Every structure is written in C-alpha cells, then in structure tokens.
C-alpha cells in the first residue's frame, strides 16, 4: 500500500526524519518495502508559452519550437505534435535533472540548437501519459512560473507499506496515522466532513434493504443531487496518482480517495439507471449473470472448486430485482457513472468478509474494494466515509445536495470482542512487565475501550478490529497490540532451559551414516525434482496409478516421482554432455506411491473441520546411487553395497540375483538384497535398463550404468534389516587351519547359499569367503571359497580337519555342488 507522508501529516504531526519514520513503521509491523520521492527533479521545470513552431529542413519527425519561459524567446527542438502556438507547456531548461536522473544538455540537431526540453507528463513522472507534451492551458500561472507552484505540487515522500492480513484497520491513511500517533503519543486529527444539507428525507426518493443479513453487515444508501461530473481538483488527482490509481472523474475519484484515506470502499450509482432508486443486498440466485465493469459476463451462484465453496455470491439488486453489481467486489456496467449523471446513489456498506473472499477467489476478480472487504471493513465507518465523500465532491459540485437521513439498514455484524486481561496476563505472555497505565494508554490510543475493574481490565475492541477474537485467542490478539505499540525491540529476552536432552532419531542417524559413507566412497549428492512428466513416470511404471498434482506449473511437472532413478539418469546425462559423466551420483529422498497401489495407504483426517478420512500416498524414503564412472557396472554396485552393509552392521544380507528385479533395472543383471533372517528386501542392485539410458541420456547409449537403490524405510527398521549382535566375540587363541575349496555349482545354486551351507557344516568353521568365480566349467561355474577352521578349546589335529572337510563336502553336495576335480 502506497502511503503519502504529506497525507499522513494531515492526520498527525510528524517531525521525524525519514529514517526515524521508516524505523517506527517497521517496528509497528507496517513494513516499509520502498520509499519514493515525489516532485524530486521538478524543481527547475517551468511553465513556457509556445510562441512559434517552425519546420526543420530535412526533418519530418522533429520541429523547432520557440517558447517564452519568462526570459524571452528560447529555441527548443521537439518531437511531439499535440500542441499549437499559444499553448503553455512544461519546459526543462539546460542543466535541469529530471526524475530518474536525466540531465538536460544543450544539443545540436539537424543544424539547429536545442536549449532545453519540452516535457510530457510521464517524463515528469506526474502521470503515465506519454502521448505528447503535458498541456498547461488550464493552469492559471504565467510563463516562467515554477511547475511545482503552477500545479501546486508539494514535494512528497511515498512509503510502500506491506500491511499484514490481521490489520484491517491499517488499510488506510488514517489507520497508519493512528498507529504512528499512538507510537509517538500525539493526537490524531479528524478529516473535514460534510453533513446532510437538505430537509428532503432520503426515504422519500430512494430505498435500501438487506435480504440476506448473514452476507451484509450494513448497507447505507445516500442520495446526492446536483452532481456535475467532471475532472477532480488537482490535489485529489495527485493523491490518487501518488497512491498508484488513475484519476477518472470527480465522483469516482472521490470514492477512491475516501477508500484510500479512511478504508471504506463506496460505490456510486447513476440514480437514473437504478430502477426504483432502490439498492438491496441479497444472495445471487442460480442462473443469474452480471456483466462487470471489466466487460466480463459472470455466472453467479455456481459452486466453486475451492474447499467448502458452495457458490454464495452477495449481489446488489435494484428495485426490479435486477443484479447491479457483485457486492464489495465490482459493479456492473449498466449503472456506471457517466458524464450525463446528475444524481448519484452512493452505497457505503460492510459485507461478510468470508463471502467476499470466496466470491473474489471464485471469479478470479480482485479489486481494491474486495481486498479491504475480505479483511473486514468497520461496519460503523460507512456514513463517516460518505460525509468525507460529500466534502470532497462539493469542491467541484458547489450546489451538491446530500439528502437528509441516509438509508441505513443493518444485517448481522459480529459484536465487538470483549477480552478480560487479568493481572499478570501480559507478563505471562511476553515475559516483560508493562505497567498497567501504559497498557491502558496504548489500547485507548488504538480506539480500544478499556474499563478498569478491581481485578482486571475489561477491553472492548473497536468495530474496526474485526480481527480481534474472543476468549484466550482474543487475549493473545490484544496482547500482540500491546507488544506492538510498546515495541518488540524493547521486550525482554531469556534463553529457556529444560531437562530433556536434545537428540536426533535413529532414522536421522541412519541417514547421516549413509550420507557419510557414500561421500567417503566418492558419491556426489544430487537433488532431483519431485515432480515430473507422465512420460518419465511411464518409463519405469507404465500405466500404473500415479500421484498427480492438479495445478502444476508446467504439464511435465505434474506427477510425483515413483523412483529416484529417472531423475538421476537425466541429471547424469546432462553432465555427460559437459564431459563430466565420470562420477558417482546419488540421492536420498522420498518417492510417492498412490494409495490404490499401497499395501497400507496412509490414512489421515482432512476436509472442512478435519472430519473426513483421507487416503494419502505412501512416502517411501529411498537411497539411489548411479555408478557411472568409465568402468562401472553391476559389480561396482555390489562392491558399494558391501561397504554400506558393513557400515550399517547388517547381520546377513544376500545379494540374490533374479531376472527383472525392478522396473528400470537391466532384466538379467540385477539382484535383490534379501535379509536372510527376516526375508525383507532391503533394496536392489544392478544396471540401468539400456532403453532407459537411451531415453534419458541419449549420448550414453551402450554404456553400462551401475545402480544401487535402497529402501531406507526397511533399513531403518531393525525387525526387517537385522543387525549383527553387538556382543563382541573374542577370537580363539588356538591356531587356525585354512583350506581352499573349489566347487562346481549349477547356476541355480547361489554362491551365498553355498557359503552359508559351508559355514553351518561344522562348528569348527570360523569363516567362509568366496575368493574366485570361474564361469567356463561344465555343469555350472566354479566357486572357490577360503574356509578357516578353529576351535575355542584346543589345537586342531588332522582328524578334526578331515572330519570338517568331509562335513563341508557333504553340505555342498546336499546343495548340488561338487568338489572341483
């Protein structure tokens, strides 16, 4: 919101420096997002009369203009055409610096000299009109008069304030001024107000009504006669321009000015186009339509997509029940003010904030009025705002009549909140003692009514503070106002302590361990997008149900990922194109499984009031690593896994090869990681499916990419990812006997199962390690194990070793493996 310092000063004396004011506004929660200096750079610009216009030979876009700026003729080259001899225009002399820092120099053009510049309104930053020179014929000032004097422009400072949603009272100059007056402990001045000036009662010519009291808190209708529509006085136009609004006509401008100044939106109707001179507020009926001022036809009373939006629109209708406007948001074209308007019906009302908010969202229609109504406009402000409107309009309509007893109908408005402040309440909330007198002073300055009782303060919020609630919440609201005006920076600070120690969870510790291990092994940690395209989803999960975002930023960012692999391969492909593909790239993050596909969908409460049971996607935390160094393949993934398994202290996880272990993995070069005790699958290893590489990283066709994809949810669950016993075994003191045994095992016999069988064959077996695999053998492949034998009780003798060897061979034979000859 743009707030003029000059305007503020009409309400409160402010002698502070700009920096002090910025500090005060920030500290009041009215954050200054920008400061603009108005009139700066216009000091040297003067009014000049055009004496003569001459063509410049050989130039058709520019002309030579002779002007008199009080000191005799001056030749200036000008490209504008919208003026004639005798007109008066603004002239910036040589040496002047215009707003924005543009310095005027003496210039030679086509053999003539230009001794200054004739200016458009936009070049002077007085409006956005850049169609031609600013014409000053209506301004009563002789040549040579400083433009600032001629236009009665006072240099000003405009603050761009950000006003928070819980400050309906601060959406106006007066509201900001009230905060500053309260902060600086100064009086707040009231603006000049008019009174009704005819004896004719309004009810004798007009009517007002509220049919749906829940939607409209108050509706006032004033009748204004002898209106002459024309331009606004300069000061009104300047105020509007300074606030970022365009002057339109005295009637519309007065309405806008009052809204900016006091925070009350008003709506002027041409009384001649309002049937029966009657305005009534009611809910729109299904099938009704309205052409709003922006020329769009609106279908009313249609339920919206928004949660709980049943489609209630509050409309203003005339005496024949025709819809004139969308209440509080935008009027209709039919009853708009025109040059021919002589009688105005002025609506000043207050509407139910939620109704306005819903309608405005549903119709995608925001206006200065709706912004204020949806935050809550003081229902007691209406007629004061009309009095201000009439005072302003009277400046251009000298015979203006405001009919007696404006029509005034009340709907349902919430009672102002009453809050009890008990002794110590403020200190209990803020940790700072603020004297009761100071509390009373602050609240009174903010228009709260405070009654001192023996044991408490009874505080009643002003009707402008619809944000103040009841009960404990209202008490917090009031305490915030006390803290705000007292100054947050003056409040005490204390570092609390408590008995419970800080800690991270086992899951978080697991994540740290995984990250540390991977980084130590050379992995770069990536962050790939959660949202992707249907095409990418179908690469790994063709046709499956997917979690979809209904309002994505782009169509290819609408599906929540079901694997980390796709994003990693894509990211890697881009690096490969930069010749930086020789890396290990990993990511730790969630994938999302549609509730229809989840074994146990996540159930939670939702909907209005949290009364509906919803099924949410299952979020599965994964750790995926792409092994993409030159010689990496599935075997590299096995090596990577072996380190992780050791670091996590997993008891016994088998790398179990199978065809088609997972979508996106090579069909015959993959394995599941199976916890032998629980049977749970901890993840998969292998290579990326070649067609996936082809699609996502086309320049890498034919290259093997190792992949390890772990289920962190399973890894974090000790009942599924079985840990080794934490008890430490002290090694035997007796000598170890070792032997190498090579077996021919058929393909269906897993090396790990054979190792396990060997380990269980005799109690003397201390360890079994696969150390060589040789494929070129008839009947399967050769698996060579180093087996060490030891006893905790004695030194082994030959008989022990041969017995153990026999047991080992038998165990192997039982699985179908035979000792290699």
């Amino acid at each position, binding site marked *: 919101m743009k707030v003029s310092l000059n305007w503020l000063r009409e309400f409160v004396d402010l002698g502070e420096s700009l920096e002090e004011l910025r500090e005060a506004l920030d*500290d009041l*929660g009215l954050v200054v997002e920008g400061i603009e200096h108005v009139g700066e750079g216009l000091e040297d610009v003067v009014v000049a009369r055009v004496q003569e216009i001459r063509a410049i030979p050989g130039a058709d876009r520019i002309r030579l203009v002779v002007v008199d700026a009080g000191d005799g003729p001056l030749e200036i080259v000008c490209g504008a055409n919208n003026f004639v001899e005798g007109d008066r225009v603004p002239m910036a002399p040589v040496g002047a610096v215009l707003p924005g820092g543009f310095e005027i120099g003496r210039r030679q053009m086509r053999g003539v000299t230009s001794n200054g510049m004739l200016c458009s309104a936009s070049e002077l930053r007085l409006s956005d009109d850049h169609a031609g020179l600013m014409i000053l014929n209506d301004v009563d000032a002789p040549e040579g008069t400083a433009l600032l004097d001629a236009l009665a422009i006072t240099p000003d400072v405009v603050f761009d304030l950000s006003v928070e*949603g*819980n*400050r309906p009272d601060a959406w106006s100059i007066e509201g900001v001024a009230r905060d500053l007056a309260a902060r600086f402990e100064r009086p707040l001045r009231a603006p000049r107000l008019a009174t009704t000036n005819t004896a004719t009662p309004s009810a004798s010519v007009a009517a007002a009504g509220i049919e749906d009291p829940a939607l409209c808190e108050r509706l006032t209708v004033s009748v204004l006669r002898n209106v002459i529509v024309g331009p606004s006085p300069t000061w009104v136009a300047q105020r509007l321009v300074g606030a970022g609004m365009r002057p339109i006509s005295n009637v519309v401008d007065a309405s806008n000015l009052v809204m900016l100044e006091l925070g009350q939106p008003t709506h002027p109707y041409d009384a001649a186009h309002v049937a029966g001179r009657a305005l009534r507020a009611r809910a729109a009926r299904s099938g009704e339509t309205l052409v709003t001022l922006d020329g769009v036809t609106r279908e009313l009373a249609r339920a919206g*997509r*928004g*949660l709980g939006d049943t489609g209630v629109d509050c409309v203003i209708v005339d005496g024949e029940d025709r819809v004139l406007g969308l209440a509080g948001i935008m009027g209709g074209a039919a009853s708009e003010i025109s040059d021919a308007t002589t009688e105005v019906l002025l609506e000043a009302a207050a509407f139910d904030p*939620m109704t306005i*908010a819903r309608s405005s969202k549903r119709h995608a229609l925001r206006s200065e009025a709706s912004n204020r109504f949806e935050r809550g406009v003081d229902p007691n402000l209406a007629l004061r705002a009309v009095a201000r409107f009439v005072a302003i309009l009277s400046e251009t309509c000298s015979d203006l009549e405001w009919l007696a007893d404006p029509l005034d109908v009340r709907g349902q408005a919430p009672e102002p909140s009453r809050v009890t402040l008990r002794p110590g309440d403020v*200190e209990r*909330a*803020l*940790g*700072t003692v603020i004297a009761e007198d100071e509390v009373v002073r602050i609240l009174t300055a903010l228009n709260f009514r405070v009654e001192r009782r023996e044991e408490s303060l009874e505080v009643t919020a002003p009707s402008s503070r619809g944000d103040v609630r009841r009960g*404990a*919440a209202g*008490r*917090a609201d009031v*305490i915030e106002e006390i*803290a*705000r005006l007292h100054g947050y920076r003056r*409040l005490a*600070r*204390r570092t*609390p302590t*408590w008995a419970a120690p*800080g800690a991270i969870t086992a899951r978080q510790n697991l994540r*740290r361990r995984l990250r540390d291990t991977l980084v*130590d092994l*050379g992995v770069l940690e990536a*962050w790939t997008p*959660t*949202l992707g395209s249907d095409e990418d989803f179908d690469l790994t999960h063709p046709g499956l149900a997917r*979690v979809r*975002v209904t*309002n994505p*930023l782009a169509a290819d960012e609408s599906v929540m990922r079901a694997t980390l692999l796709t994003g990693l391969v894509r*990211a890697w492909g881009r*690096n490969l194109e930069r010749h930086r593909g020789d*890396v290990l790239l990993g990511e*730790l*993050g969630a994938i999302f499984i549609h509730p229809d596909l989840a074994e146990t969908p996540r159930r*939670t409460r939702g*909907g*209005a009031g949290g009364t509906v049971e919803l099924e*949410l996607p299952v*979020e599965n935390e994964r750790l995926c690593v792409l092994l993409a160094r030159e*010689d990496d393949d599935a*075997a*590299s993934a*096995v090596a990577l896994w072996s380190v992780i398994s050791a670091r996590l202290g997993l008891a016994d996880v088998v*790398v179990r*090869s199978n065809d088609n272990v997972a979508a996106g993995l090579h069909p*015959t*070069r993959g394995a599941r990681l199976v916890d032998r005790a629980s049977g749970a699958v901890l993840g998969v290893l292998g290579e990326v499916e070649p067609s996936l590489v082809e699609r996502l990283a086309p320049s890498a066709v034919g290259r093997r990419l190792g992949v390890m994809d772990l289920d962190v949810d399973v890894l974090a669950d000790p009942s599924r990812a079985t840990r080794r016993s934490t008890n430490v075994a002290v090694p035997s003191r007796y000598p170890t006997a070792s032997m190498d045994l090579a077996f021919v095992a058929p*393909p269906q016999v897993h*090396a790990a199962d054979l190792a396990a069988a060997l380990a269980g064959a005799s109690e003397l077996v201390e360890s079994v390690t*696969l150390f060589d695999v040789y494929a070129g053998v008839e009947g399967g492949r050769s*698996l060579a194990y180093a087996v060490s034998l030891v006893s905790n009780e004695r030194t082994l003798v030959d008989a022990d070793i041969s017995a153990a060897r026999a047991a080992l061979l038998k165990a192997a034979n039982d699985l179908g493996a035979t000792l290699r000859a």
Partner: protein
Amino acid sequence: MTSSPLSTLGDETARALAAIEAADELGALDESHATLVGRRSAFVALQRSLGTLAPEERGAAGATLQEARRRVEEAFAARRALLESRERQRRLDADRLDLGDVVVAQVPWRLTLGHPSLVASTQRELEDVFVAMGFKVADGPEVESDWYNFEALNIPPAHPARGMWDTFYVDLGEPETVVLRTHTSPTQIHLMEAAVAGGTLPVHSVMPGRCYRRDTPDARHLAAFHQVEGLVVDRDITFADLAGVIETFTKAYFGEDIDARLRPAYFPFTEPSAEFEITCTICRGAGCRTCSQTGWIELGGCGMLDPAVFDAVGIDPEEWSGFAFGFGIDRCAQMRYQIADMRALIENDVRFLEQFS
C-alpha cells in the same frame, strides 16, 4: 469362361504364411519381406492382373485380395515381434550376470572424491546447533491433508490467509483436501497430537524438511525448498523465551557478531507473531545492497502458539504455552555461501556439486 485371375490367391497366401511361420532368424525374415508381402510378392502380380476383369467385378476382387494381403502382413508383423523378442532375450541371456557371484575383492574401485549436498550439510549443521540447545529433531511427510497444513494451524478453508501460500493440490479426495505441504508447520500438529495422545508433553523439537510452493523458480526462490521449524510447548514459556532462543541460535550458527531482532508480523498459527531479522551477514550491519542499506536481513517467522492451534490439538492454554519459529534452510545456505542463483541447487551440475565439503 476364363479362370479368375485370383484362382491362385489361396495357394499364394498359404505359402506366404507358411514361409513366415518357418522363419527363425530376424534377419532372414526381414530379407524375405519383399517377396512375401512387398513389391516382389504374388499379391502385387495379382493386383496387376485385376485389370483383366470387367470394371464391375474389380471392386469385389480387389477387396478379397487386400484382405488376404492384410492377413499375411499381420502374420509377418507378429512373427517379427516374436523373433525380435527372442533375439532380445538371447542378448539378455548372453549378458546375464549373477551378482551373487561377484567377488568384491576383485572389483576395481577407483578413488574419486564425493561431496554432500549443500542443503543436506546445511540442514545437519542447523540440526546440530538445535540439538546442542536441547531440541529433538523430528520428521514429517511431504504430502499432507488440508487439515494439517492449514485448518489445524488456524487457517480455515477460503480464509484469505490461505493466499499467503501458493499451494500445489494433489488429485486425491475432494478438491483441495490434499496438498504438498507449503511449510513444515503441519509437523508441529503431528508432534502435539502425539504428545497429547501419549501424555508426553512438553515438546521441544525442530522439524527440518522439504516443502513446496507453486511459485515459478527464480534466482531467489525454488518451487521446492527446505525449511526448519521449531516448536516448544512447556509451562511458563513466554515471548522472552522465543526471542532468547532466536538470539542464541543466530549467534551459534552465524557467529557472535550477528544479532537478531523481531518485528511484528502476522501468521495465523501464532499470536503475537514476528518476523525475525538478523544482522546482514554480508556487510556485518554496516549497510549494503543485499540488505537495502538497513544492515538487517529477514530470515524467518515466529511467534507464540495461537490458542486456536492449542484448541485444534487439545492442549489446555491455561496450563501450557509455547512458541514456534521457522525459516529456510536453502536461504541459510544461500546467505552463508553467497549463492547467486538458487536454481543451481537443483541443476545437479557436477561443477557445482564438487565445491562442497
């Protein structure tokens, strides 16, 4: 009466179908395409001979011919697909690797340098500061219901305050009931609910995590980002405790010469609410372009827990009070490491990633 030009069609068709069925090699099948169904096939010759028919007979005969040719073409395509899949399977079989047979000691492992994600390491540093201050660290889901993301946080449906968050909605349940969480605050609700249900109040927790806002990415914002949220619910907790925690954290994380200050703000789930600013880390308070010459930069939001939130989770505000705060992890990283464009965080360029230790 002359014999019909199509009298051999049946034989030719059967012959072609048999040849297709007999083909065992993809290459051989492809080579025979021209003679079986292509331009050197019997069908083309027969097509030409239709010219000898009377014009009124040509239509029906042509249709018969086309139908036969279509059948052969279909058979060809089906056979081709089968052979292709066999070929692929043969290749895959030849390529098969039993990962259980991998001898880890024999796998070459070249030493390369790894690097953690900047966001992850920043998050860990922040967690460590808060753990040292006595906070537990909690996680929460990224997809939430509107109840947890909004309503329990005192933001009812259609409340204008919902406009403060540009929300991605998920196509589940009634419209706008499932969202990608727009902040980590719903985790507060989960924690308080769990503490009430389990009788384990008080709560002293921080909640880091990924959030989403429907905001076109630019140099300062990403549609996905990371926040850390803090929650304290205990007896006799005041705004002074909140201000103290913010100050202690600021000095511990950013340095002893960095101060924090609060200014009034509005968040539906806290009252009183504040934005917190810290001494500009670039100019150390002297004033520079980053801080618009003020010496301060905005870091996050905080406030005393609103009684309406206590009401939603069933905590008695007469017995308990508390505060919450939240700020961006990525933003901390941006400030600390002077990242000119946040989009670099999601581009995964190795040249960017390898700068972090």
